[in-house]
C-alpha cells in the first residue's frame, strides 16, 4: 500500500500554553512494498511521523494519503478502522500495551477486534509465538509474569497477528539483547519479503537501517531533510554529521581500512558480508597488481 505524506505539519496540544510544534512541512513517499528506514536524532519527530501513517494523529497542516484514503488537515475523517487494520504499528516500548489474562488472549486481541474468527486468531498466535522464539508455554501465562524481552516479543506478536499490509516499527528492538535483536529484525525482514509487506522502521541503529532498508529518510528538527537510497545516504559522512548522525559501523570500518591500506573499496559496504567481500576483492586486486 502506497503512503504519501504531503507537506505535513503537526503540533501537539494545539491551543494550550503547552502547544508544541513537532513536524514542519514533511513530505515523504513510502512506495508499496518498500522497506523505509526513518533515522534522526532523538526528538526529531520520528514517532510523530509514524503515528500519521495509520491516522492515530491527524496532520494539523497538509495531508496524508494512505492507499486510497486521504487524511487532510481540518477535514473530519471517518471510519479509520480499515486503515488501522491495514497498517499495524509496533510502538516504542510496546510491552506497555499488554493487558489480558493470558499471552494467548492478548495476542488474539487485535485480530478479534477486526473480526478474524477465533480459531484463525488462535492459530496465528501459536505460529507467531514460535516465530518470535518464545516457548509454547508462555501462551497460557499472564503477560505480566514475563521478562521485559519476552513481553516485547508478545507485544510484537500482537501486532503481527493482525496480518497488516503495512508494518510500522518504532525502535522495535531497543533494549533487547544483541542476539534477540538480530533474530527479530531478521523475522521482520523475512515477513517483509514473504508477504510483500510495506515496512517502515524507525531506528537509532544505522547498521539496521543500512542492512534492511531500500529507502532511508532523515528527520531533523521536525523536518524530513533527506530521503534516498542507503548506499548514497550513508556514503555522505558530512551530511550525516550535520544531522548529528554517523555512518554504520561497516562504513566506518571501510573508511579506516581504506585510510590504512591506501586501497579503495568498491562502493560502500552496508552489511558485514558486503564489507568482507569488498575487502577480500580489494586485497586480491592489490596482490595481483604487485
Amino acid at each position, binding site marked *: 500500500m502506497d503512503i504519501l505524506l504531503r507537506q505535513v505539519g503537526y503540533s*501537539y*496540544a494545539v*491551543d*494550550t*500554553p*503547552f502547544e508544541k510544534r513537532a513536524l514542519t512541512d514533511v513530505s515523504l513517499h513510502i512506495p508499496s512494498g518498500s522497506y523505509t528506514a526513518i533515522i534522526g536524532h532523538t526528538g526529531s519527530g520520528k514517532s510523530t511521523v509514524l*503515528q500519521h501513517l*495509520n491516522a*492515530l494523529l491527524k496532520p494539523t497542516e497538509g495531508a496524508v494519503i494512505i492507499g486510497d484514503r486521504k487524511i487532510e488537515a481540518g477535514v473530519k475523517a471517518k471510519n479509520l*478502522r480499515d486503515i*488501522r*487494520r491495514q497498517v*499495524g*504499528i509496533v*510502538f516504542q516500548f*510496546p510491552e*506497555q*500495551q*499488554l*493487558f*489480558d489474562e493470558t499471552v494467548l488472549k492478548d495476542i488474539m*486481541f*487485535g485480530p478479534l*477486534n*477486526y473480526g478474524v474468527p477465533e480459531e484463525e486468531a488462535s492459530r496465528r498466535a501459536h505460529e507467531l509465538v514460535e516465530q518470535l522464539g518464545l516457548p509454547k508455554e508462555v501462551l497460557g501465562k499472564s503477560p*505480566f509474569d514475563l521478562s521485559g524481552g519476552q513481553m516485547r516479543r508478545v507485544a510484537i506478536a*500482537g*501486532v503481527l497477528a*493482525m496480518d497488516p499490509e503495512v508494518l510500522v516499527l518504532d525502535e522495535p528492538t531497543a533494549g533487547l539483547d544483541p542476539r534477540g535483536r538480530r533474530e527479530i529484525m531478521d523475522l521482520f525482514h523475512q515477513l517483509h519479503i514473504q508477504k510483500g509487506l510495506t515496512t517502515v522502521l524507525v531506528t537509532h541503529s544505522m547498521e539496521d537501517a543500512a542492512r534492511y532498508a531500500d529507502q532511508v529518510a532523515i528527520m531533523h528538527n521536525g523536518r524530513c531533510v533527506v530521503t534516498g537510497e542507503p548506499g548514497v545516504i550513508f556514503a555522505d559522512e558530512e551530511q550525516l554529521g550535520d544531522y548529528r548522525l554517523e555512518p554504520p559501523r561497516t562504513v566506518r570500518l571501510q573508511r579506516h581500512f581504506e585510510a590504512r591500506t591506501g586501497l579503495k573499496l568498491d562502493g560502500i559496504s552496508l552489511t558485514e558480508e558486503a564489507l568482507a567481500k569488498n575487502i577480500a576483492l580489494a586485497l586480491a586486486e592489490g596482490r595481483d597488481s604487485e
Partner: protein
Amino acid sequence: MMEKMIFGRFIPGDSLVHRLDPRAKILFVFLFIAIVFVANNAITYGLLIGFTLLVVFMSRIRLYFLVNGLKPVMILVIFTFLLHILFTREGAVLLDLGFMSIYEEGLRQGIFIAIRFLVLVFITSILTLTTSPISITDGIEVLLGPFKRLKLPVHELALMMSISLRFIPTLMDETGKILKAQMARGSDIGSGPVKERIKAVVPLLIPLFVSAFKRAEDLATAMEVRGYRGGSGRTRYRQLNWRFKDTASLLVLVALAGTLWYFRS
C-alpha cells in the same frame, strides 16, 4: 485529547498570582469556597463571576484554555443543572411539556448551582495552574503544622498530595499513549454501542494501573536510595516568605465577603 486536560498541570509564569505565597493562595481558595456560599441572588452571583474573571485575568492564563481544559467538568455542571431543573417543583411554571414542567425556582436554582460550581472549579484550577506542586506541598505542610501536635502525619500527607498532583499529567500522557496503542489494535473507545465502549476500557485501565504501580515502586526506591526518612529534622532549601501582597490578597477576599453579605437577600 488528553493533552488538553489541565487538572494538576502547572504553567510557569510571572503574574501577580504566580508570585503570591502558596500559603496565601491555599488560604485564599479555602476562604473563597466558604464565601461562595454567601451568595444567594443575582447580584451576588454576578459579583462572584466578576471576581473570578478578575482573578483569571490577573493570572494571565487564557480564559479559552481554562474553559477548554475544564470540559469534562462542564459535563458535570450541565448534569447538576438539569437535575435541578427537572426535580425542583416550586414557584411559577415556566414551561409545561405535559409529561413534565419546568418551574421558575428550578431554573433559578439550576443556574445558581452551576455558577457556584464553575466559580469554585475555576479558582481551584487557578491555584494548581499557578503554583508548582512543590510550593503547594510546602504551603500545605506549614498550614497544617499545628496539627502535628495531634499526631497527624502532616509531612507525609503533604507529600502524598504533592505526589498525586505531580503525577496527574504524567498519567494523562500515559493514558494517551496506551489509548493509541490499543486503538492501533482495533479497540475503539470513541465509538460504538455503550456496551462495547465499556469493554474497551479494560485494555486501557489495566496497563495504566500496572504502570502506575511500577512508577510508585520506582519512586519509593529512588526516594529511599537518596536517604529520604520522612519529615522529622528536615530543613528546607526553599523558604516561604509572607509579604504584604499576600496579606492584601486575603483582605480583598474579606472585602468581597463583606460586599456579598451586604447585597445578599
